[in-house]
């Protein structure tokens, strides 16, 4: 019995070993490689949130019929795991993407992958795209309104859609104080990108570029907060100027965006032992420096250009149009005039006598070496211009020597050569102009008639003569409260 058992075991062992000698005939189901390629109309797509995104790729390959599709987007915030880097979400499994986009709007780009899976070989092919989800608030007019005891921001899109109270909707727990008075949107031409800010008396907020949510207080945009937080302005006068610059309680702060900083530094050092209190305006051009006005000592100042953070006074010079160190007036504004807005040729400063209503126009040349260039390029008393000292703002043409201003219900153009002003548009009696700005040769004016929802915004296109084309507005939006200020959000 035992002998029989041993023989059986030995036989099975030999048979098992012999199976190793079996020659593999290779009779497998091989499939031809089926390289899949997708061609899309662009590599980067931009869509307004809640709009439908349609992408129809052209698929190429030996057999595109056996391809399965997945449109994957990442990173998508995962509420269940907020600290994670985000998850991958499949938007669609169709050949053509045609979906309403509900992803969160952001200044950053999502990665959008079209994944093409060969259902026979199982091989996946990727076409990598970029997707930016924006909001309706990406580009358009931002209006700062007085609403009840607080203030709020409304928005008008280029398509003329009006969104009321967008700030409070985005920031329900951070109402804008009643003291809010200034709204700014500038391109910093640096890592910071578009900077949107709203100021109130002793602080301000920086607003997210797509959601308008508060991202940080104004004072957090510094390496160390200003000694006195009282925001006044932020401006990038030219792409060559070191900056942008911001002004807080009469002190100047620069952000070295040339060296990719995203924070403002310390207050610029005073030019001499007199100290300075800067008017909140800056001029700049082809030179790397920038020009400021010391309101306390009635003199212009400049920084040395490049990365200097110490102010200097101009050397005495009697050959220029005016004495840069003695302008005994109050600066009402200083803005770019003629020339390309990236580095304007001329800057205009409007001054007012401190003892009366007389106003003056000073021309500042910010190009070249600021110690040798004739910076003081021109000066004239502004004549024959009613109520010029009362304008809520001053606008300058980039092509002709004209300035626009407003008083009560009248919009004026000041002809510098003729040294006189004329009314170019008049609103109905009682409808007062409260704010005005210029964008693409069109003046956008806000008016208020004193009644509830009595605020209106008009677009007034400028003709080549400086008049309002057809003496008529091209757009009118009503139903606002009193608009304090407005600014064009640059996108």
């Amino acid at each position, binding site marked *: 019995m035992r002998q029989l058992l041993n023989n059986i075991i030995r036989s099975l062992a030999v048979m098992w070993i012999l199976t190793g000698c079996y020659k593999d005939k290779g009779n497998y189901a091989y499939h031809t490689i089926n390289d899949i390629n997708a061609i899309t109309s662009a590599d980067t797509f931009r869509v307004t949130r809640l709009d439908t995104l349609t992408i129809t790729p052209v698929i190429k390959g030996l057999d595109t019929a056996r391809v399965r599709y997945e449109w994957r987007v990442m990173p998508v915030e995962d509420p269940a795991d907020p600290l994670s880097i985000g998850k991958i979400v499949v938007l669609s499994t169709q050949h053509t993407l045609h979906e309403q986009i509900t992803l969160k709007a952001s200044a950053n780009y999502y990665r959008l992958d079209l994944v093409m899976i060969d259902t026979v070989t199982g091989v996946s092919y990727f076409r990598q795209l970029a997707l930016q989800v924006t909001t309706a608030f990406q580009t358009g007019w931002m209006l700062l309104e007085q609403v009840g005891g607080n203030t709020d921001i409304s928005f008008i899109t280029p398509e003329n859609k009006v969104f009321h109270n967008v700030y409070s909707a985005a920031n329900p727990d951070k109402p804008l104080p009643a003291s809010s008075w200034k709204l700014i949107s500038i391109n910093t031409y640096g890592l910071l990108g578009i900077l949107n800010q709203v100021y109130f008396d002793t602080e301000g907020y920086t607003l997210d570029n797509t959601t308008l949510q508060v991202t940080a207080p104004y004072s957090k945009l510094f*390496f160390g907060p200003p000694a006195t937080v009282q925001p006044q302005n932020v401006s990038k006068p030219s792409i060559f100027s070191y900056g942008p610059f911001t002004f807080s309680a009469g002190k100047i702060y620069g952000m*070295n965006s040339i*060296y990719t*900083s995203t*924070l403002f*530094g310390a*207050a610029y*050092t005073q030019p001499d032992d007199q100290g300075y209190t800067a008017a909140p305006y800056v001029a700049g051009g082809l030179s790397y420096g920038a020009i400021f006005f010391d309101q306390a000592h009635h003199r212009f100042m400049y920084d040395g250009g490049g990365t200097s*953070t*110490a102010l200097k006074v101009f050397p005495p010079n009697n050959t220029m149009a005016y004495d840069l160190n003695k302008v005994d007036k109050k600066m009402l504004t200083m803005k770019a005039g003629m020339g390309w807005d990236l580095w304007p040729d001329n800057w205009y400063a409007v001054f007012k006598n401190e003892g009366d209503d007389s106003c003056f126009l000073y021309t500042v040349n910010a190009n070249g070496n600021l110690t040798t260039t004739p910076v003081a390029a021109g000066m004239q008393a502004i004549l024959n211009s009613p109520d010029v000292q009362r304008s809520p703002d001053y606008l300058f043409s980039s092509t002709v020597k004209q300035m626009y201003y407003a008083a009560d219900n009248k919009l004026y153009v000041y002809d510098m050569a003729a040294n006189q002003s004329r009314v170019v548009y008049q609103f109905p009696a009682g409808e007062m102009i409260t704010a005005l700005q210029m964008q693409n040769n069109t003046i956008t004016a806000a008016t208020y008639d004193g009644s509830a929802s009595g605020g209106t915004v008009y677009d007034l296109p400028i003709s080549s003569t400086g008049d309002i084309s057809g003496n008529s507005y091209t757009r009118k939006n009503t139903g606002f409260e009193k608009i304090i200020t407005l600014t064009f959000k640059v996108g």
Partner: protein
Amino acid sequence: MPPIIRLMFIILAPACLLGACKKENIPEGSDAKSGVYFIYATTGLGFGNLDSLNYTFVEKNSSVQMDTVWLAVRISGGTVDHDRIIKLSAVSAGTTAVEGVHYKLLDYTMPKNSFGTNLGVVLLRDPSLQDTSVVLKLELQPTDDFPVLMKDTIMGDGKFYSRNSYKINFTDRLIKPSNWDSYLITFFGAYSNVKFRFMAETLGVSSFPDTGPNALKYPQLQYYQNVVRNALVEYNAAHGPLIDENGNSVVFP
């Protein structure tokens, strides 16, 4: 099996099994003796100085004549309902700091019902520290309250530490940054001891690396430059020009 043995087995086996049914009273806490040990800062991980710290008075305003560093300790064993004495003393071997001149130790206790506390060591800004740096080597000593010292334990850097000792290296000596003449001179001008001490006091910083993981970027250095320049304007207005050891007025470009 003989019958007698089988009988004994039958009798004893149930007795043994029943013995397992006795309820054991588990003590509520460990009866291990209490000990106290240092909590080393993990920030030193990778630098071989888990059990030590470096301190400089250079970064303090000149009005600061003493400062306290706090060393965290924790206990082994349970808490008790009364304060317990912790004994910390300087170890003569390896200590160059002089008690009463460079440092003062305090009376230390572990508060009741606490697992940990911080032991303050007062560092004194003696003028001698402007020329030298000193070492204070401290060790926890056994007491009636904490009779046990911790044995060697392996830490995150893979080394063994007793966790009974701590070393403090401190100084008030200016050390000119090695990158001053090659880089910092752009922001701060020519070096002098008076200038550098003014900078360190104003900024609370005496190291300005431009390479490595903590390298300062250009805008940060420019910010420092602007801060010290403004501080110098204020100083000069209040006290007259700040003069350095070479007789020159201190200036920042």
